[in-house]
C-alpha cells in the first residue's frame, strides 16, 4: 500500500503562525497576572500600612530602643 504525499513545505511557518500569537497572548496574560496578583497587592499593602503610620510615635519607640547614634533615648 503506497503512502500518500504529505505536506512538505512551509511547515515551520504554519507552526509559527499558530503558536506565536498564542505565545504573545500568554506572555501578556502572565504579565497582567503578575501585575494584578503581586505588584498591586504589594503596593496596596504598603499604602495601607503607611496610611495610619504615626511617624513621631515610631521615632520615639526607636529612640527609646537605643538604635540611633544621633539621639540618646529620652531620660539619658
Amino acid at each position, binding site marked *: 500500500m*503506497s*503512502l500518500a504525499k*504529505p505536506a512538505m*513545505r*512551509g511547515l*515551520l*511557518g504554519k507552526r*509559527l503562525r499558530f503558536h506565536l*500569537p498564542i505565545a*504573545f497572548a500568554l506572555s501578556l496574560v502572565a504579565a497582567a497576572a503578575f501585575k494584578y496578583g503581586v505588584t498591586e497587592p504589594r503596593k496596596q499593602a504598603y499604602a495601607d500600612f503607611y496610611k495610619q503610620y504615626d511617624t513621631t510615635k515610631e521615632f520615639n519607640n526607636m529612640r527609646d530602643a537605643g538604635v540611633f547614634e544621633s539621639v540618646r533615648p529620652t531620660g539619658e
Partner: protein
Amino acid sequence: MHCGKYIKSQTVKLCIVVLHIDGIRSPLASRCYSHAKVETDEEFDARWVTYFSKPDIDAWELKKGMNTLIGYDLVPEPKILDSALRACRRLNDLASAIRILEAVKDKSGPHKDIYPYLIQELQPTLIELGISTPEDLGMDKL
C-alpha cells in the same frame, strides 16, 4: 496569504517576525510589498534538480547545496533528493548520501509521515545506487 490580515496595531510586530522567517506558505523569497517575481514551487524544485545534476559537480558544491537546501522551510522533494544522491554517486561519497537521508528525516521534525514517504519514493534510486538507509545500518538508534 494576504498580509493585510496582519495589520492590526498589536500584531504589527508579529507581521515583521513572520516576514523575516522564510516560512510563508508556498513562495520562498516572498515579501508582502515587493514587486519582485515570486518563484513557484515547480521552478524552485527544477532549479535545485539542475544544481545537483551538474555532471562535474564538486564536493564543495554538493555540501553547499545541501546546507543551503536544508536551511529552507521545506523538506526537499524526492526529485531533488534523487538528483543529490546521484551527485554523491558521481563523487563516490556514500557518507554524504546517507547523511542526506538523516538530514531530511530531521527536517521533517514532528511530522512522522514525511520520511517514510520519501524513502518509498526514493526506493528505486536507493537500490540502483546501492545506498543503505540509516535504519538499515542501525544508525537511527542512539
